[in-house]
């Protein structure tokens, strides 16, 4: 017994020394884990605030119920400029009277149509002023010279899906831009694609987008 005891004592010592070493580096690993959790889970949440659109607009109602075509509101004018989001006056062509009994309709009519006020829509794809973007060359007609995009697929290439309820708008607390604002690398998926150089005018030169 004594012999056995004598023989296990050094083993225990090794084991406890190993445990101590583990205990010694544990705070380091805990620090890594905490940082990872903060950085990947908490930080993205803290960086953005969440805002809802001033009016709960649904494309679904306008397209599927009212039967409007996208071009009815978002059109490229003959001079190449894009009409973007319609003005309240343009919306009032249909909404001159209350259409339905939804809360969103009531808010829109009371707060915007009747006083003739523009809605401060939150723009998911808002780009900095130093980016010159025109919808005209990014058209279905141009892209489908080679691709076979549907209208929805092409729009969703850059825009968030707004088919049903308008999604929550996330604004970066530091930069002030939308979480969905495209970064340059996203533009470069097409602009830096060598296959585009032959068939389109979309090269990746600075002055193409930055005037």
């Amino acid at each position, binding site marked *: 017994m004594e012999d056995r005891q004598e023989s296990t004592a050094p083993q225990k010592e090794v084991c406890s020394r190993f445990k101590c070493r583990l205990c010694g580096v544990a705070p380091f690993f805990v620090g890594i884990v905490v940082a990872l959790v903060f950085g990947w889970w908490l930080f993205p949440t803290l960086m953005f605030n969440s805002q809802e659109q001033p009016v709960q607009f649904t494309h679904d109602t306008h397209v599927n119920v009212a039967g409007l075509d996208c071009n009815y509101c978002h059109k490229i004018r003959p*001079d190449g400029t894009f009409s973007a989001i319609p003005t309240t006056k343009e919306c009032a062509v249909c909404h001159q009277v209350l259409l339905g009994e939804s809360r969103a309709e009531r808010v829109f009519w009371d707060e915007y149509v009747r006083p003739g006020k523009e809605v401060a829509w939150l723009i998911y794809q808002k780009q900095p002023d130093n980016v010159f973007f025109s919808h005209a060359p990014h058209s279905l007609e141009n892209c489908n010279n080679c691709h076979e995009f549907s209208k929805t697929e092409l729009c969703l290439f850059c825009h968030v899906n707004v088919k049903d309820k308008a999604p929550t708008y996330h604004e970066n607390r530091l930069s002030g831009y939308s979480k969905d604002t495209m970064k340059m690398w996203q533009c470069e998926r097409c602009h830096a694609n060598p296959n585009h150089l032959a068939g389109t005018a979309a090269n990746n030169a600075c002055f193409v987008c930055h005037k």
Partner: protein
Amino acid sequence: MLDRRGFLKFVGGAAVGTLATPVVWKGLDDLSIWTQNWPWIPRLDKGNNLNTYISTTSKLCPSACGMRVRLVNGRPVRVLGDESNPLSRGGVSALASAEVQLRYSPARLKRPLRRTADGTFVAIPWYEAEALLRAELVKAARDGGLMCLSGDENGTMNELLSALTVAMGSSDFYLMPGEAQTTAAAWKSLGGRGRVGYDFARSDFVLAVGAGVLENWGPVVGNRRAWGRARPQDGEPAMRLAYAGPVQNNTAAGADWWLPIRPGSEMAFLMGIAQLLFAQGCPSAGVESFAELAAVWTPEKVARATGLAPERLQQVVEQLAAARAPLIIVGTDLGQGGEAAPVILGMALNTLLGRVNQDGGLRILPEPEPVFPRAMSYGDMMAQDFTAAVRAVADKKRAAPSLLMIYEANPVYAMPRGAGVEELLGSAGFSVSFSCFLDETARRCDLILPSAMGLERFDDVNTPFGLGEIFYALCQPVAEPLYESRAAGDVLLDLARLIGLDMGYATFREALEARAASLGLDWAGLMKGECAISRATLPLESLIFPSGLIAEALEGRFIQPEKGALAVATFTKLAFGTADSAIPPFATKLITDAELTAGELSASMNSATIRELGLREGMKIRLVAGEMSLPARVRAFEGVAMGTVALAAGFGHTNFDAFNNGKGANVMDLFTTVEEPGTGLAVWRCPDVKIVKA
């Protein structure tokens, strides 16, 4: 329990872990993007903005470009060429295309300014400025001491200003010296009546002597469009161009033939052409004196005076003889202050070739009838010589004006330093400048009134200089005047009414409506951008060749510069502004080494001249002419005639804006005014210069 060592380990782990998260990289990225949104950075008004277009005409560009101004939500943002304009046909000059942005120039005057006793300016309200000017007008009306200078080249505004001057008992209304006066004086010397235009677009061979027809002479945008149409890429050219001048400027670069001649030798060149034409059998009946004068100007003699090889002169004459519709245009590179004698010779040669009142030739146009009662006629305005008047005041040969009124002109900058403009401003009882910009002249006046720009007021263009047709177009306001600027025409009509003068119209727009009616034009059409063109001409009456005048003008010329001295040739580009404007911010990128080297004026010489003078490229030098000197840097350019230094005009502003001030030097500092032998006109001349290493 976490001890100190454990805590540090935790922090270390957290730091390492953070590097594997987006915190640092995303944070830095967002931080850099945040700098785009600082509150003092102006923002674009993006969104569903309505685009509209208004057609108008440029008052800033002397070629009267037809412009389609694009407005976004009522705010002008861009100038496009108007395809429907019969003159500029969709073309637009760099100057006109910058007109929208020039509204916001840092040099733009915001409110009336009055000079105080200590020489500084204080802002005053319009009613105070008007009261001040009204009092000065009343005083000037009493002693007939009003002198008025206009920078407008072709508008009805000149009629208002001349009518006001005459109504105030004075005849001192002047236009800024330009090619129009020189040409008018030349035509008058030949005994012609009406005004002269050149039918550039219909000619098949143009010989431009000194006139930068593709860069800065006459209706240059229209010229360029006509040139482009006549020279299809895949077809035979329908027009050929030869340019004679000392510098291979943009016109020479575009021409089929560049004929390098020494500065000031244009008359010898033209006499050489006349000699060859007569020798080849051109009828001399009626112009015997011309033939007699020209007889001695053999190609060899011309070569000695001009430096041009005799066979090249011969080639030009062959081209003239072979052309169906040849045209000779004589002008100056500066577009102002030129001599009339070479222009007389050019007109005489056109007459000799039978090109008067022909398509593609020299055309005699009727003068416009004034719409303002008491206004000076076109001919009378052209006969007024501002350079001579300034000289007379500076030399105390005539009384200084009690009131000097300057309308959109900058003579302090644009006229020769030795012309006496400073003395005129110093001796005038009171001086007032109607100006869009706080320029060199405005800063020397007692009262500065901010003028609405061409895009902010009603104005007109009545046949730009050089055009071979009668042309009329309207300028209309596309936006409200910025700041407190006002249309000078309306201000003057108000003041005239207040001092009891009946000018015939309550507003300047009314006067323009009367002008349109007098021309039989529809006002609504003009407002839509329609222009009127008429090819009516006056019949050619017998012209008299002024042989005595020409003989006198030829005397004592063509003396070679003394050893070590260089003749000066100037050149300019329309993009660098005009006599009453400056380089627009957008055009600074058009400045090349040919004009400025390391911020200093480029003194371009051919390499043989540089070697001869012991200079090297890039060397800092001074160009010295008498007491005047100009800093510059040597630039080697083979497109400059031997013994000549080429300098760009349009630089060296001292009081304009950050885009102009301190850039290069003003070539006008080297110029002086002299009386032209023969015609007696006060013309500008640059003496030969010596080069001194700085």
